[in-house]
């Protein structure tokens, strides 16, 4: 073999992975290349920069109490975004996240408060509702072969209407429910910061899903299915089964988010989570996961959710009108997607 191929003779260059020749690239191409190989680097830099900027702009930004407030503010959307990441990794999209979460939370709350079902059972039925909703989405995508966008646009309205019907459009107060449903709102002190169980649950879910995606067969198959479905099928992966399982797991995660939501607002409101659909997609996209599937990291999504939380919180502390918070998040999304497109054109 001759050595004209990249990587044949070159010594390892620090920024790129070993065995690749980056010496002939321009600085811009090198940045593109590094971002291409390190998917979470971009969001990590953005988060770091925004932390630095806001700690200068707003005095009390870095207070432990404020940091814990940011985490409280992102934990529901962050948990939803775990499920959303799975679906976007398979080149799908889920518009029904908020509706599934609200339906699950109303089911849990109603069963406990009105029907007198024991807390644990109410919680498990709530989880089952989320799982079932995910199953319906998954079956429509894999069996009827409808595009995920259309499927979840439809079920968004169906699930939300069911939620209004079951709740009679009324909020269930926290004190009427079993304490177990409110458990996620409990607080422990960590170094002066008050952290809720819900936030810890979210972080554990992120860690668990990161592990699963990286180290299990299922995780590998999720990536392969999103990357090139036909290639995955020819390789012997049962892609329909992978897709279906992704929607089911996502549904279950949305139900866990419902539990965290009840703890956060100490109630179950049929109007909660209206913005959760787009917020969860925002977190995933800012976290560097490609909408075209097969590319992205779950930890990027955590960073993405935190970036949105930090921006909103920081701008608020700096005394800037809320409309500019939305403006800033919108710009972040556009920049993130533009960068993703650019990275995908990497010369490699």
């Amino acid at each position, binding site marked *: *073999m*001759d*050595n*004209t*191929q*990249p*990587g*044949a003779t070159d010594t390892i260059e620090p920024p790129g*992975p*070993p*065995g*690749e020749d980056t010496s002939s690239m321009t600085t811009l191409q090198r940045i593109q290349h590094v971002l291409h*190989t390190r998917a979470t680097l971009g969001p990590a830099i953005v988060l770091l920069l925004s932390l630095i900027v806001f700690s200068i702009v707003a005095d009390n930004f870095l207070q432990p109490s404020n940091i814990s407030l940011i985490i409280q503010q992102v934990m529901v959307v962050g948990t939803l975004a775990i499920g959303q990441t799975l679906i976007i990794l398979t080149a799908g999209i889920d518009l029904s996240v908020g509706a599934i979460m609200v339906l699950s939370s109303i089911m849990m709350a109603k069963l406990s408060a009105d029907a007198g079902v024991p807390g644990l059972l109410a919680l498990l039925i709530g989880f089952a509702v989320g799982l079932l909703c995910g199953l319906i989405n998954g079956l429509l995508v894999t069996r009827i072969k409808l595009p995920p966008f259309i499927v979840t646009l439809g079920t968004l309205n169906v699930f939300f209407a069911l939620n209004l019907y079951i709740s009679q459009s009324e909020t269930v107060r926290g004190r009427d429910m079993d304490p177990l449903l409110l458990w996620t709102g409990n607080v422990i002190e960590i170094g002066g910061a008050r952290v809720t169980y819900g936030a810890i649950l979210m972080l554990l879910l992120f860690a668990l899903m990161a592990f699963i995606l990286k*180290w*299990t*067969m*299922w995780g*590998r198959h999720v*990536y*392969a299915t999103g*990357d*090139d479905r*036909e*290639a*995955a099928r*020819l*390789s*012997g*992966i049962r892609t329909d089964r992978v897709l279906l399982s992704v929607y089911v797991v996502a549904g279950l995660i949305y139900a866990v988010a419902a539990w965290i939501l009840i703890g956060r607002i100490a109630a179950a409101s049929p109007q909660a989570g209206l913005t959760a659909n787009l917020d969860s997609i925002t977190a995933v996209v800012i976290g560097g996961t490609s909408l075209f599937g*097969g*590319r992205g990291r779950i930890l990027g999504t955590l960073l993405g959710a935190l970036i949105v939380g930090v921006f909103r919180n920081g701008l608020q502390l700096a005394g800037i009108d809320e409309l500019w918070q939305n403006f800033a998040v919108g710009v972040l999304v556009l920049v993130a997607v533009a960068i993703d497109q650019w990275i995908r054109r990497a010369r*490699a």
Partner: protein
Amino acid sequence: MTTQEAPTKTPVLEAKGLVKRYGNVTALNGADFELFPGEILAVIGDNGAGKSTLIKCISGAEVPDSGTIWLEGKEVLFKNPLEARAAGIEAVYQTLAVAPSLDIASNLFLGRERRRSGFVGSVLRMLDVGAMNEHARSRMTDLGIMTIQNMSQPVETLSGGQRQGVAVARAAAFESRVVIMDEPTAALGVKESNRVLNLIRTLRDKGLPIILISHDMPHVFEVADRIHIQRLGRRGAIVTPQSHTMSEAVAIMTGATQVDEHGAHDLS
């Protein structure tokens, strides 16, 4: 390998009287096929000669209407490509069935990942990434594809020839008995093509029989031991690079020369 010794062995893969019709069109009209151990058999033929249908029947992508296929003397009937694959018939598709953003080792093991032993492997289905990287590395070294050093490099960062190498290594990596290659050099430059042809020879020298489908006559004549010429839905002739020239083979392929099955000119 020569034609004289080939027929004395039992074929690895054999088909007799394959018929496949699509509506009014008869793609295969009683086609025969033999692949012997340790040979590179090129399959050539004009468009519509039934070349790809023949390969599809052998690789399980199509089920023939009639006819029989034997794998190592045992009659087989494949209902889909996965069954053929399970029996040891691996196909490298022209469209390279790789997952671009996954790394080389992941692609080599795609769909049949190695799992950890014990509970974490069987129940949690946890990957044994170390063993897969190890195996991938030794496999790639074996095949002389050592321009690729880093098994955790995404496949999309490889050149066309290297990707082809990954696809070929995958086909050859799992105790396969037959490897079918569909136009493996079609999308490659001269240098990369040569590398892939060398790879095909390497596999053959390791004892793996190969079916090579190609339009590229120079490539076919460079590596093939025998050449199966498909014509009008049947096997028109079998020739060797020694017995016939390229233009003679093309003449048989297009029907300009009439021959019997063994490539002797039909004088009757």
